[in-house]
């Protein structure tokens, strides 16, 4: 059933369901009774009042999905509410039948589920990524999903949403993670291309979001040669292009091409860097675009020769700033170095708790399996 844009609508497909006997979290208790809005269950974050899960890690009847990364967006749910772009990305990854029924929601549009007002707001993480805001009579909760505040020409910029409780990611939740300007990192790559024109430059980048952002940054830095991509990136990259993101001349690498790509830039899933596939290129320089590249031991561990500190997550400074700016007095922290940011919140008088959700992955380092063609 279609929802008209800009208007509050009631999504009647969501029947009230008896509440399961899950242990409700008390963190958001007190006079506000925010626990009606959000609690933690084995499949993940759950809104009892609206009877809906957010980014559940196993199939559930009803799910709100923040973005298309595989640890947040899984196949097999009953009904799914997400942005149109996230929905399209899920269909690309899992096939058109990835759930029983789906409904696309525009950024800022308000949908009412059993009296809870739900809206999606840009998270600046990847194309279609959203923070999910739940407004009930007891208050307002925002689930950030993954987000960043640094410049990214391939997706809508992060929108700050004020709330009473903020569920934030903390992938880079240590003060050593301060992401530099991504353009400077791309300049590093281009300098290396100039210094080693007879070598191929292989850049490992997560296939959804990071890869396309690197392509766009290369274009903005003046790289006008074709950009070569591994087959695993093809569908998503075409989707970005179809959404109006101009990435220039993008070419898929065929087996025969590999030996001829001296002086070229090839983007592939990170898992491919250590694979036999990469050895057919002329004396390849292996680069990896990830926030983890900030720490030398991590880069060395993976045998990376040219670490590029480019992240699609907030760094420490932006994480702290965002927590402050939301005005939230309660902070839940998901995947990452939760202890450090919890400590930081506590030194500022904020009530903060780590939320250990099993199954949330680390999308800066994509699983080997997913990178395989």
């Amino acid at each position, binding site marked *: 059933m279609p929802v008209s844009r800009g208007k509050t609508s009631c999504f009647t497909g969501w029947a009230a369901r008896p509440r399961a006997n899950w242990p409700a979290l008390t963190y958001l208790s007190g006079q506000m009774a925010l626990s009606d809005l959000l609690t933690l269950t084995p499949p993940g974050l759950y809104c009892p009042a609206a009877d809906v899960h957010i980014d559940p890690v196993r199939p559930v009847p009803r799910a709100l999905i923040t973005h298309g990364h595989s640890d947040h967006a899984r196949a097999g749910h009953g009904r799914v509410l997400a942005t149109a772009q996230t929905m399209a990305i899920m269909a690309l990854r899992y096939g058109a039948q990835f759930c029983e029924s789906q409904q696309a929601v525009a950024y800022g549009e308000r949908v009412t589920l059993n009296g809870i007002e739900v809206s999606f707001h840009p998270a600046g993480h990847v194309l279609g990524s959203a923070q999910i805001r739940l407004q009930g009579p007891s208050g307002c909760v925002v689930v950030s999903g993954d987000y960043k505040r640094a410049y990214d020409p391939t997706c809508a910029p992060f929108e700050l949403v004020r709330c009473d409780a903020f569920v934030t990611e903390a992938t880079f939740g240590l003060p*050593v993670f301060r992401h530099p300007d991504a353009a400077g990192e791309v300049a590093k790559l281009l300098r290396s291309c100039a210094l080693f024109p007879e070598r191929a430059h292989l850049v490992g980048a997560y296939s959804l979001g990071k890869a396309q952002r690197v392509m766009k940054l290369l274009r903005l830095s003046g790289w006008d040669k074709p950009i070569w991509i591994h087959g695993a990136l093809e569908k998503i990259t075409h989707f970005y292009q179809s959404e109006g993101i101009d990435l220039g001349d993008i070419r898929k690498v065929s087996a025969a091409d590999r030996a001829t790509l001296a002086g070229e830039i090839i983007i592939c899933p990170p898992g491919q860097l250590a694979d036999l596939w990469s050895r057919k290129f002329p004396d390849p320089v292996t680069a990896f675009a990830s926030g983890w590249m900030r*720490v030398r*031991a991590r880069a060395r561990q993976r045998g990376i020769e040219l*670490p590029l500190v480019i992240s699609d997550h907030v760094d420490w400074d932006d994480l702290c700033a965002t927590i402050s700016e939301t005005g939230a007095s309660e902070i839940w922290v998901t995947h990452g*170095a939760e202890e*450090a940011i919890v400590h930081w919140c506590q030194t500022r008088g904020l009530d903060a708790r780590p939320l250990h959700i099993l199954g949330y992955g680390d999308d800066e380092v994509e699983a080997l399996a997913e990178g395989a063609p």
Partner: protein
Amino acid sequence: MNRFAQLLDRLAYESSRNSKLRMLADYFRTTPDPERGYALAAMTGALSFTHAKPAIIRALIAERTDPVLFAMSYDYVGDLSETVALLWPAPQTERRNVAPPSLGDVVHGLQQVGKAQLPQLLASWLDDLDETGRWALLKLITGGLRIGVSARLAKTAVASLGDHDPNEIEEVWHGLSPPFLELFAWVEGRQERPSANNPAPFRTPMLAHAWDEADFDKLDPADFSAEWKWDGIRVQAVAGTDEEGRRVARLYSRTGEDISKSFPDLMEMLCEAHFGDVSIDGELLVVIEGAVQPFGTLQQRLNRKSVTQKLVAQYPAHIRAYDVLSENGEDLRELPFADRRARLESLVARLAHPRLDLSPEIPFSDWPALAQARRDPASAGAAAAADAIEGVMLKRRDSVYVPGRPKGLWFKWKRDPFNVDAVLMYAQRGHGRRSSFYSDFTFGVWKGSELVPVGKAYFGFTDAELKELDRYIRNHTRNRFGPVRELDFSMDQGLVLEIAFEGLSRSTRHKSGVAMRFPRIARIRWDKPAREADQIEVLETWLDVGLRQSAPNAT
């Protein structure tokens, strides 16, 4: 330094020898002198300075970060230098007014800084560098720089700049010293091959510690000789004869930079046969009709691409001799200062050249007499030269000439630094113990009817004054930008601070066009109306009389 750091960063991840060589060669080809020479020195182990202890670095970071967050970070990263490099809080970049230090700045800075000032100097470098730069700096000064490049590989990269065999570099290596200007000039085909037996070698100079007034009680004036500290450039003038019997002369800066080219007048003097084989430590000055000219005049002779006859005639160069290091093959550095001084006096008398004279001794019987001389050089025999005097030097009469900055032998006791009255413009919270106070102050001087920021100070006030300042700031805030408060200032309102600083340089990054070295608050002028603070012209005149760019000569 940032560029050198990027090279080290890249080298650290590269395993192929050939690729390392390419990176090194690219760096040497695209980096100017003397920076690349210091980089070569760092990679070949030719740099030596006292290393900073990790405890200093730990203390610096402890003042700036939460201990729990530091511990978690260190635990994760596993390396102290890297943790600190990444964790170091970014300064308010829009208010910084200095360029990041070059590797040369770091090398010089570490050679001249006293132990007590090291943490502050280090902190200011860390503020100005990026993450990679901080990592490289900390590795360098803690002696933990392991970059997988052998001295041989670095020399091979230098050789490749001019298709030379690396063995040719080895043959001349021992006659060379940082920053290796002759070596690069040769491989790039701009100069002849340096001689393996350098007839005019540079010897690392002996430097002085800052005099602490508490030292008066401990030291006996009779043990010391005093002389003026001249406001020129510390140089080493060396003359010799090569294997073919040709006269060779060199003028080196304190850091070993060969500045001979700018001083053909002095080269001519040193090449005179009766100078023989000699190495003189002295001050480079411009002297006109016996009068020492201010530093700004000397600047007319520095860093010149071409030196015209007219320039030489207009600004005649001069060496005022402090010490003699060798004479006709005899190394004199093992002699006590008093003996060397006697040798120097007879040497200068024998050479009898108008461009060379002796730095006079200051007669004094006790410390108060010397303090009086320092305060008023004219009264102690300096007469008209008083303006060219930076302070006094004290040398133990029994001190042998020790390269570097040995303790307890030589002292410099400078005249007071420069002072200016400025208006407080912005304040920001401090770090650590001071994190609840506004303790970082940006101040400005008048440019017409407008205030322009000229610097930032963190030091120079007592805790009681800090509290008063903090209260003033909270009550006089006009605007807030994140952690920064903009204060109420106008012709009729504002707090005047008397700022003392060590030097001044031109800055394009700063609206006022000037940048101060080591500014600190000398006094809080609660009594002084804002309109009576100084005008920018005052600073500009100091620039014009030539306060040095970065105090390269602070001995």
